[in-house]
């Protein structure tokens, strides 16, 4: 397959805990409806934090995205089938269980056929544990840090 010519040159940035005004930076992640139970829509499933290809858990950095923009970026299914959670970057880094994970800005460059995503950021390392209880533990802790920003079953829009 021929690699498309990038139309942007978004640089990879270091991600600090706080913005210049001292506000917390966050990562937004879409949660597909399969992970939102009708009878307990407030519960954030640990299973929603997966890293299938060892590329990282895909998120958007709040410097360049809002929760709504993150939701609208989903193309696999209609955006309304997704909720969006927010994870404070400082809380991931300060958490004893999650300290082995790394947060890496990984912008997707725009091409003729792709919109691109300057906000794209990966949480890397969750699968370096392999198939072990440490992976389960990291998933549980990520879910505990996460907060709903968009969840139609909770009337959060």
């Amino acid at each position, binding site marked *: 397959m021929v690699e498309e010519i990038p139309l942007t040159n978004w640089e990879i940035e270091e991600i600090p805990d706080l913005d210049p005004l001292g506000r917390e930076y966050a990562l937004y992640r879409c949660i597909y409806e399969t992970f939102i139970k009708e009878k307990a829509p407030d519960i954030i*499933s*640990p299973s929603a934090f997966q*890293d*299938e*290809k060892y590329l990282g858990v895909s998120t958007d950095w709040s410097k360049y995205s809002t929760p709504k923009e993150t939701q609208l970026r*989903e193309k*696999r299914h209609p955006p309304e089938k997704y909720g969006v959670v927010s994870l404070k970057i400082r809380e991931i880094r300060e958490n004893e269980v999650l300290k082995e994970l790394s947060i890496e800005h990984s912008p997707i460059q725009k091409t003729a056929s792709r919109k691109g995503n300057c906000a794209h950021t990966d949480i890397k390392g969750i699968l370096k544990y392999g*198939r*072990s209880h440490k*992976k389960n533990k990291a998933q549980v802790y990520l879910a505990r840090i996460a907060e709903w920003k968009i969840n139609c079953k909770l009337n959060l829009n």
Partner: protein
Amino acid sequence: MDKIYHPTLKEIVDGKFEYKGYITGTIDYPEIKEPYKPENVENSNINLTDDNTKLINLYFNLDSTKLTPVPKLIKKFSRKKILLKNLQSLIRNYKINPIKKGYNLFLDFLNLNKIYRKEYINIELINELRDSIEILNLGDDWDGEGSQGYQKKTWKNMANFLQEMSLKYFIDTKDYLDSPFIYPGSKGDIDLHWKSKEFELFLSIPQSDDDPITYYGDDYKKNVIEGSFEKDNFEEILSWLKKFL
């Protein structure tokens, strides 16, 4: 796309529609004894609730029998000398649900294990198992992040695991095992998740028979359980669950 018509309960009772699906609701007749599987209904689950009513699921399939099972169901109930004008008077808060793709696997599981004879399985668990069949309809790359699809074998292993856990829990406590949430997991695994104000437990049922079940749980304080085990060796997990359920 074809519009799916969902018949009313009366239309099903009158046998006007060929319809494959199930009814859920609450039944008010304590005279109906467990176990109970109405004739021509593929399966049923009944649990006694705290207020002495019974939750009921009836799975019926008009496609295969070309008969009208619901009138037979009424006949069966009538033989129990319950005066019924129609099913509507029998089941409160009923909901008619279509059977979706893959549900035959769920019905096979119920029938193979004669679940309708089992008093130890929480109807909430059966409902969660039924809904979890949807996981099998998620093909490769269903999330756009490269996740693989799920195998029937993994679902069966998960369902059998929960059934065996429920039995042991019931023997030990004379109570139902609370249903976990069932989610699609990583690499074809299926995940189970219990979460309450007191504790959280998260398990992954492996796709490969060579892999163990992995788990992590805690009480949000220092009471932690973590590790892995072969599927039949769930004693430690069960003992831990008993502290909180």
